[in-house]
Each structure stands twice: as structure tokens, then as C-alpha cells.
């Protein structure tokens, strides 16, 4: 009675992952893009926790910790880049970064 189907946890992660993906694909504001990336990473973390729960392992949680770490680092670097970008272009529009092509 006290149980949740594994697939539901995974599907939730997939939904969040997809939403994050949509965010990355549609938003032109780079801050939102970064946030969407966080959603994707978080969805991955969720999937690991589901896995950990299914196997009764702590390993999934450790992986989650690592994701947390890398998300933090990524956000730090990403925000640093956003600051530089805003300084240079005075906008957060990601499309200004299209000078290289071909």
C-alpha cells in the first residue's frame, strides 16, 4: 500500500527534464537559459534519487551530491560569463552571441 511505482518517479524526472529542455531551446534571455539548465540537472538528480530508492543504495544520493556540486560550479562560471556579457553587450539576449558562423 505504501508504495510508489518506480516509473512514476522516473516519468516525473523525464517531465522536468523535458521542461528544462524546452526552456533551453526557447528562451532568449540567458539567465532563463541558465535556469533551465539547472532544471535539467535537477531532473537528472531526481532520477538518481529514484534509482537509489529503488535499489536501496546510497550511491544514487552520492551521485546527486556530485550533480549538486557541478551545478553550483556551473552556475558560478555561467553567471560570471553573464556578467561579462552584459558588460559588453548591455543585453541578456543570447542571440547577440552569433558573430561566429559558417
Amino acid at each position, binding site marked *: 500500500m505504501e508504495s510508489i511505482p*518506480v516509473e512514476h518517479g*522516473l516519468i516525473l*524526472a*523525464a517531465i522536468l*527534464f523535458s521542461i*528544462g*529542455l524546452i526552456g*533551453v531551446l526557447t528562451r532568449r534571455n*540567458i539567465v532563463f*537559459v*541558465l535556469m533551465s*539548465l539547472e532544471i*535539467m*540537472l535537477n*531532473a*537528472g*538528480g531526481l*532520477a*538518481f534519487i*529514484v*534509482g537509489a530508492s*529503488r*535499489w536501496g*543504495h546510497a*550511491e*544514487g544520493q*552520492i*551521485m546527486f551530491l*556530485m*550533480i549538486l556540486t*557541478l551545478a553550483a*560550479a*556551473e552556475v558560478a*562560471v*555561467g553567471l560570471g*560569463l553573464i556578467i*561579462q*556579457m552584459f558588460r*559588453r553587450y548591455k543585453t541578456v539576449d*543570447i542571440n547577440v*552571441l*552569433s*558573430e*561566429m*558562423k*559558417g
Partner: protein
Amino acid sequence: MDITLADLIPLLPLLVTTGTAVVAMITIGIKRDYGLTAVITIIGLLFAALSAAYLMPNTNSQVTPLMVVDQYSLFFTVVTCATAMFIAIFSYSYLANLDDHKEEYYLLLVIATIGAIVMVSSNHFVSTILGLETLSMSLYGMVAYPVHVKKPLKFPLEASVKYLVLSAAASGILLFGIALIYAQTGTLEFASVVNVPNITEGLDDGFTITALVLVFVGIAFKLSLAPFHMWTPDVYEGAPLPATTYLATIGKAAMFVVLLRLIEASEALTFNSFILVISLVATASILAGNLLALFQRSLKRVLAYSSIAHMGYLLIAVVASYFVQGSISVEAVTIYLVAYMIMSAGAFGVATVASSSEQEFDRIEDYKGLFWRSPWLAAVFTAMLLSLAGIPLTVGFIGKFYIFFAGVEAALWILLAVLIVGSGIGLYYYLRIVYCMLLAVDVEQKFDIALGRNISSHAVLVFLLVLLIGFGVYPAPLMAMIETISTYI
């Protein structure tokens, strides 16, 4: 499973590298000195390489679940550290006039190397992710390094943002895939995904394949395989040359080693559809990479596109590994990776030697008449390009020979046909560059290529050339070594 003192010995290269990072950091903290930092880095990497080489003959241990230190990983540790050292040497003169703090660059370079070492020694998803992200994180910094300069050469910022966003998305995909695999197998180690106790009986292969494809796509992005390749030229072009070199050599090789170990351990190729997926990606990469490069005028972009194609060639050997007995395809991948690192480092090295952080010579026309202005540099460049094209006398041919051999043994006729077509197209753009260098000099001296300015970089070029030709003409020792280490995969 706890770490013991005995475990530290196999980790020596990693420790030396980390120590180098720490020492460099402390030095920077005490007094900023560009030269000193560079020297510390170079010596540190040299020792790391030497220690790995020293350990190589008789080390084969699993250090904690995370890292496997066997001959194969040590071999690539040597290669990685050596390449990183070369890039550090190239960087020295390149960055010498950068109008900014330059010391952190070396710090990032060393940390990136740590990530790479972890990756080549990884047979566990946790260490894979950590190594990969350490490498990537440092590369974000390296790619965008000259961002503060008033008039940056190219677009390091744009390159870095593109790389970061897309790479993070790819990491997300990779992680999600790993999570699915974990959900199925219950372990984060590289383990077979075939015939494991499934979540329930009756779960068909679709789940496994989906998970594998997600992981593969995450890796394919890093290897810039088509159709996940589009970031490559932009990032290569925007990044400063040494960072591009790093990205193109160590970034690719470390990731490929992971892919190789993962595919071998997971037995993913038992799924026919997964073979199909890899074959398609290989085909697309070879064709897209070569076609994109055809009329490209930027040298870095040409090399970026060509790297796409080269990764495609490598995938052929990966596919072949399922069909052939023995380790020939692993050897093929290994030797091709080594060859690719030598020739890429050499090709970018020439450009690096010619350029500086103030002005990069990136257009092919910049090298017009180089053969007569600086025969030496042009000779190195030509050799590297011919090697990339897979012409004999160079190690690139030996690599291609192996891939052909693996392909023939595995009877992958279609992929071989693609390989031949791709190589044929490839010849065009490599020769285009060579031809440009052969043209008579009718432009004023574009750049100063005085030998004395950066003698150490030239020394590295000499070394790379010797390796290129040496292994091209007498590859037996290299082959013997690779044959031995390949049994560890």
C-alpha cells in the same frame, strides 16, 4: 574499499598534478609571477608524465571503485600530461603579452589535466562525471580567458557561453542517461547492461537502449560527433589557440577513452540498433565534418570540422570492436587517438607559434607563402596536415591503416566506403592549406616567425615532428606497446 596508503602509489600522477595545482596556487597567492607559474606547471606536468611512465609497466590496480589504474589508463595519463605540457609551453609565448592576470591560466590548465587523468582512469560513472566536469569547467575558463582584453582577438566570450550552455545541456542528457542505467542495473560502475536483473521481467530493450543513447549523445557532444557537432567550430574559433589545442586534443582523447571503456564494459553493442545508431553517427560525422571544411577560410574552423570527421573515423573502429576477435579495434582506437593528438597538437602548435594573444593568424591566407618565408614551420605544418589526411610516412597513416584493418576484419563495407569518400573529400581541404603555403610570396610579411622568440615552442614542434615521422616510418614499438596495453580494456 577505503583508500589506503598503497593505493596512493598508483595515484601518483594524479597526486603530482594536483600538487602542481596547489603549488601554483600558493605561488600565485604569494607573488604573481608569470614565468614562475609557467615553469612550475610545466615541470609538474613533466613529472606527472614521468611518474605515470614509471608506473606503467607493472601497475594494474583498482583504486577505490572510482578509478582503475592499469597500463591503459597510465598510457593515456602519460599522453595527456605530455600534451598538456606541450600546450603549456605553447601557451607561454602566446600569452606573454596578455594584458591581464595570466597566472590563473596555468592553474586552469593543470586542473583540466587532473580532470582528464581522472577520465582516462575512470570505470565508474561518478568519476567520469567528476573528471568530465572538472575538465569542462577549466575549459570554460580557458576558452574565455582573454575576455578582459580591450580588443579581444576573436570572441572568447561567445565561445565560452556557447560551450558552457551546450555542454551543460549535454551533461544533463548524459546524467539522465546514467540515471536510467543506474535505475536498471543498480550500480554506477561500468557494467554490462545486458542480462542484468531487470527492474521487472519483461522489460524490453527499449529502456536500455534509450538509456544508452542518452549517455552516448552526452558523450557524442563532447566528441563533437554529428549531429551534435555544431558548437565545435565556433568554440574552436573563439577560444585562444592554446585552449583550442587543449580542447581538440586532450578534451577529445579523454572522452574517447571513457567511451571505449564504457562500450566495452556495458556490452552495448550487443544491441543491433545501438550499432546502427553509432554507425549513423559515424557516417554523419565523417560526411558532415569533411563537407563543412571544404571551403572554410578559417584555419581553426577547418581543423574543427576535420576533428568532427576524425572522431567519425574512430567510431568505425568502435563499431568494429563488436565484430572482431582480439583487440585490434581497441588498438586501432588507441593508436589513432595518439596519432590524432600528435598531429592536432602539431597543427595547432604551428598556428600558436605564429600567433600571439594580441593577434591570431587564423585565416588560411595568412599562411600564404609560408613555405618560403619559414620553411621549417611550413614543413611541420605540411607534415601535420598530411598526417591528418592519412598519408604514409606519418603516424596518421598508421592510425588510418589500423582503422581500415579493423573495418575490413569486421566487414563493415558501408562504413569503409564512407571512410574512403570522407578521406577523399578531406584531402581537398588539407591540400588547399598546403597549397596556400606553397604559393609564391606576394604579400608583405604577415607575422614575425623569428625562431629565437619562442625556442621552446619550436623544440616542442621538433619533438612532435619526430614522433609523427618516427612512428610513421617505424611504428613497431608504438604498436607493440599499444598491443600490450589494449588487453586492459
